[in-house]
Structures are given as C-alpha cells and as structure tokens.
C-alpha cells in the first residue's frame, strides 16, 4: 500500500527582480520622493520585474519512490527544492510533505570552521532536526561512514574539502529521513566516496523512503531513480520513465526550447539571457580548428579547440572552468577542468572572459555528442553547470585507413593504436 510522500499542487514562485538586498533606506527614500513629485515609476532606480521561477507545478511523489529532477540552469530545480525544504515559501499553491525531510542542498551548511568535527556533527544534527540523544546514538556510525575518526576533535577549518563533504553527507544521510533531497552534492568528493553516497541513497530508497535527486549526471539519475521529471523555465515539461524523460530533455537541449540557441553563426552555443540570481554563466561556446577559425564541426583525429565565453557577476578568488563531452545518453567520455583536474589556477573579477581548451586530436568517432560546460569554485561547488549546453557533430574520417571510419554506431572513442601480426606462442611454455 503506497501513499503520497509529497503532494505538489499548482505550485508557483515569483521573485521580484530588481529588489535586492543592496537596497538601502536612501534608495527607498529616493523612490518615494520620485513617486511623490510625479516623475513616475519609469524613472525609478531599479524597475521591479516579476520573474516566475516556478509556474503551476503539480506532481505527486509516492513513498519509496526515487525521483530525479532534470533541467537546465534556471529551470527552477533549486527553487522547487528550496520550497520543499521550507527555506522559501511558494507564492501560490501548496505542497504537502509526509514525515521528516532532510535536504542536502549544499553540504556543510551549518558547519562552523572553528568548531571541531564532533561539535559540528551535533550542531548540524540539531539544525537538521535531530535530538541530541539521537545524534549521540548515531555518532559512531556517522564518523565511521565519513572516515574521519582521527580528526573528529580537530576544528573543521583544518579539514580538506573532501573530509568536510564526507562528514556533512554522513550526518544528513543518517538522519533517517522519510524524504531525502539531494542537490548535486556528488559534484564534490572523490570517486570512491561518490560511489558510497550513491549506495547510501540507494539504500535509503530501498528502505521505502523517498528520494528526490537533482543532478546533471544523467547516468546517476538513470541508475538511481525510478521516475524522472523535467523542468524547463519553471514548468514541468515531462515526467515518467527516467530513460524516456532524460532522452526528451537531452534531445531538446541546444535547441530554442531550452533557452540557449545555436543560431548565431560560428557558435555552438550563444545566449545573452542571464538566469535570475546568476553569479556566473556561460555566454558562448565556439569550436575552432587549428588555425583558430570557428568551425561548426570537426572530423575524427583533427585538432579541436573549445573557446568558452563566460560572464562573472562578482569576484571569485578561485575559479575554474569545466568542460565535458558526453554521449547522447549522458555517459561522460571526457571531463576536464582548469582546476583541480589541471593546474591552471586563477581568480576572476566581475566581467566577461573567454578561455580556450585545446585538444591536439579529437578522439571521438563520428556522430553526435553533448557538450557540457561548468563554472566552479574548484573542489567546492559549481556556480554554473549545464551538462547539455549544446551538441557537437563529429565528421567521419577514415583515420585507420581501413575504409571503416569510426562512428558512434559501433564505438565512441577512436584512440590511436597498432596491432601486430600474430606471433606463434612457444609450445608448452618451454623456452
């Protein structure tokens, strides 16, 4: 017998743009004064504009379901999660949540750098709604899962970011939530830990608890979720079987329906429209050949250069650009970043930039690929991430000289290699 764990009924959320915290008394006074002398609202400093982050979303999630939410940047995924975890209230509609909800919108929330791991576990547990006694009961299990035994009495400011994330995830995962909300925590941490997290999430789902998973990792969504929902521009475009929904989402990406466009000549992706509250965003992506001329496609084994144009709205002391190439099913073939995957370390002030990533040789076989670009604070968090920013087409080329150019119909990666002719093995192992 299953019943709804979450009922979302006609949920909408409206933000007023132009009304920010930078507002001061004097701004307000100027505005009041202007409206009084009749210069009208047209002249006001910042015109308030309504922005609907979510529009009329209805969705029922049954107990024990694992639902993946996919969609591009600014699609409303985060807003939906924020409403479900009660951080912000909806403008219209309502949502009902049965039982205890724990959200991992960003791990390490509530961790205080000066406090020790032990103190932080108790504090974080309390923030997530656990009683002290409950945390004490689970304490060993939490520390064990995080693997930070030796450092538990060290202030967390001395932790590596990986340890930090592990401890935070461990606390949240051991809360015994009825509904567990996870947003991109798996973007950080090492592969081994990511695997354990996915395992833990799988356990949670198997125990009949409900999981809502927001990720750009389509393979993880497909593996973990029994259902998927696709949000775009605040609207629910599709929901149902994960493979099908992901396919629809990926098919639509890079086309006008998803916000971005590939219409500007010489660009794989170009978008002037910024999502609300964006701290940083990708403006453009160009593919260049060895002579730095923009091209629309490359052939297997030809040199290729990706030129990423991005815009930053505030100062970042440490910044990183991430580029990935995936199959249309979302399996990542190539992922690289300026840091930590490479040692190109830099910070950025607000402004527009472009950066090149050169591949001496395109190892992809002929066919369609999804290009993803991310902007991040290295090893901490993504500030922009779009795994399906646009598509790229690789032209066939008979690189092996066999008359059988590599294509995605048979395999994806065309690595340079060589076969020998067979040598007869020595008889009976005698030498």
């Amino acid at each position: 017998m299953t019943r709804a764990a979450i009922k979302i009924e006609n949920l909408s959320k409206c933000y007023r743009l132009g009304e920010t915290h930078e507002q001061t008394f004097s701004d307000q006074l100027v505005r009041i004064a202007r409206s009084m002398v009749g210069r009208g609202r047209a002249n006001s400093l910042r015109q308030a504009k309504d922005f609907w982050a979510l529009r009329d979303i209805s969705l029922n999630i049954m107990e024990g379901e694992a639902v993946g939410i996919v969609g591009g940047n600014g699609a409303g995924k985060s807003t939906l999660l924020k409403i479900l975890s009660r951080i912000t209230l909806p403008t219209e509609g309502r949502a009902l949540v049965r039982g205890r909800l724990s959200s991992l919108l960003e791990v390490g929330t509530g961790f205080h750098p000066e406090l020790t791991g032990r103190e932080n576990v108790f504090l974080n547990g309390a923030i997530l709604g656990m009683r002290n006694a409950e945390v004490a009961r689970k304490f060993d299990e939490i520390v064990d899962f995080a693997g930070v035994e030796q450092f538990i009495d060290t202030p967390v400011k001395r932790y590596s970011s990986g340890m930090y994330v592990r401890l935070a995830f461990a606390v949240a995962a051991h809360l015994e939530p009825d509904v567990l909300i996870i947003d991109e925590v798996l973007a950080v941490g090492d592969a081994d830990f990511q695997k354990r997290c996915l395992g833990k999430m799988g356990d949670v789902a198997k125990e009949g608890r409900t999981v809502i998973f927001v990720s750009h990792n389509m393979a993880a969504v497909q593996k973990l979720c029994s259902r998927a929902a696709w949000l775009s521009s605040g609207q629910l475009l599709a929901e149902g079987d994960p493979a099908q929904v992901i396919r629809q989402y990926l098919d639509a990406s890079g086309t006008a329906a998803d916000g971005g466009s590939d219409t500007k000549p010489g660009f794989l992706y170009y978008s002037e429209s910024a999502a609300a509250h964006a701290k940083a965003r990708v403006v453009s992506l160009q593919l260049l050949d060895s002579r730095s001329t923009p091209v629309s496609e490359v052939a297997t084994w030809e040199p290729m250069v990706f030129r990423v144009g991005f815009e930053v709205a505030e100062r970042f002391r440490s910044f990183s650009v991430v580029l990935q190439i995936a199959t249309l099913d979302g399996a990542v073939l190539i992922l690289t970043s300026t840091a930590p995957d490479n040692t190109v370390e830099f910070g950025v002030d607000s402004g527009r930039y472009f950066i090149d990533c050169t591949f001496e040789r395109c190892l992809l076989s002929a066919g369609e690929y999804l290009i993803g670009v991310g902007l991040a604070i290295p090893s901490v968090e993504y500030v922009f991430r779009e795994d399906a920013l646009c598509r790229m087409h690789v032209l066939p080329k008979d690189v092996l000289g066999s008359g059988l150019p590599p294509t995605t119909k048979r395999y994806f990666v065309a690595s340079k290699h060589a076969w020998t002719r067979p040598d007869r093995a020595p008889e009976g192992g005698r030498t």
Partner: protein
Amino acid sequence: MKPMQPSAPNGDQEDVLHDEFFGHAHLTEISSAGRSLRSDLRELWAYRDLLFLLVRRDISIRYKQSAIGIAWAVVQPVITMLIFSVIFGRFAGLDSEGIPYPLFTLAALLPWLYFAKALTGSSDSLVASSNLIKKVYFPRLILPLSKTLSGLVDLAIAFGVLCVMLAWYGVVPGWQVVFLPLLILIAMMTALSVGLWLTALNVKYRDIGLMVPFVVQIWMYSSPVAYSMTIVPAQWQWIYSLNPMVGVVEGFRWAVLGKALPALEPILLSLSIVFLLFLSGIWFFRHTERTFADVV
C-alpha cells in the same frame, strides 16, 4: 550476552512534541498562508536542542584561538570600570551618592555590558547566519534568541568580579538581591524586543548594521551607567525614566548596593513599552520571516 538496547525513548511529553514536528507520520503543509503563533511556539520548543547548541557554539567560538580565552569576560568590565573611575569618578568628580565610585559604576556596567552585547548580537543574528538561512529550515527566531542567551555566561563571570569588589569594599547586599534575576530578565526582554525589530530590518536594509553601534553608544549615555541619576534635572527625571535600561541599571544598584529606588511609575510605564515592543517585534519578525531567505 549484552543487555538489550533500551527500546524507543520513553514516551514523555517532550518526545511527543518532537514527533509532532520531526516524526515519520507528521504532515507538513507548505503554502504562502501563515501559521498560528501557537504552532510556531510549539515548533520553537521542539527545536530547543538547536537553541542550546547555538548558544554553546557562540560561547565556545568567541574565545577559541584567543590567548587568554574566557578571561576576556573579566577584562572588559574591569577595564571599563577603571577608565570610568579615573575619568568620571576622579577627574570629573561625578557624585556617586556616597558609594565608592568603582563599585557604583561596576554595578551598572554588569547589566549594561550584557544588554549592549545582547542587542548588538541579536540585531546582527540573521545577516550573520545568512548562509544557514539560505540552506536549511529551522525556526528563525532561534537566532536572535540564542544571541540574547549567550551573553548570560559573560554576565555570570562578570558577576564574580562584582563579588570580589563587594568583598574588597566590605559591602554586603541586602535581601533585595533576590530581584536580580528579574532585572536581568527585563534587560534580556529589552534587548530581544529591540533586536527582533532591528535584525528583521537588517535583512533588507543593511543601514541597520551600521546604525547599531551608534544606537548602543547613545543608549549608554542616556542610561545612568557612568553617572548618577541625580544629575538629571528634576523636570526631566520622568521622561528620562522611560528608558527601560534606567530601571534595570538603577534596580541593580538598589539590589546590590542598597541604593534607594527611583520613582516606580515611569519604570512601570517603560516596562509596558518593552512589553509592547516585544509583542510587535514578534509580530514583525514573523511577518517578514518568510522572505528572509529570498532577500538576505
């Protein structure tokens, strides 16, 4: 064999309440409609462990990585007392109504320093925890509340200083000393009431953060901390006493040093003002609470 684990918590009142908010059967409705004050207060109580931990966090980080640690809670009132004694007691020769000036001003500094810290802390509490507010849900009221509570530890330590000073001057407090907790409660209520307004406003208007130190300074000069209330002209006494901290500070001197109480009527009136401020503060806080995460 190992003894069996004690089964589920003994179903006392508190756990029933905790279950109401964190239990597996609890149904939470999320909508733009507000909730009742009663259910908000019950929820606040269910989160009391968090309040306790935040108070503890405050105290432990305040003195972490400082060489003399908790001794700062002694240094601050002592140094202030010394400066006031030299400048106002010796150089300016202010009247201290027959009480040794250091004792006279220390008895006032105790509630004053607590109040100033509680007011500053609670006014800043939401903005200082903006990271938390944007990422998790918990009753926001806990933040200003924890700031008014964490100052109590410093107050208790400063109290030790006062005891030493009393012994030094050979002053023994009378029976009135039992009123001290009440006076501290009034100081706490005043700080929290004003703090609720300021912290909620501070979320949207950062001017408040710049204003608070100034407000605290002015407030101190309008309270009889460094001087005696007797220097205020008689016709102004009544209005002067509307400042709730006048009642608290003079009350402290009365309770500890046996100094005569000022007129009670204005003090009672100021208490009702505090009470109104408290109620309106709660109302305003609850009213703006829903948008904190969006604007902070």
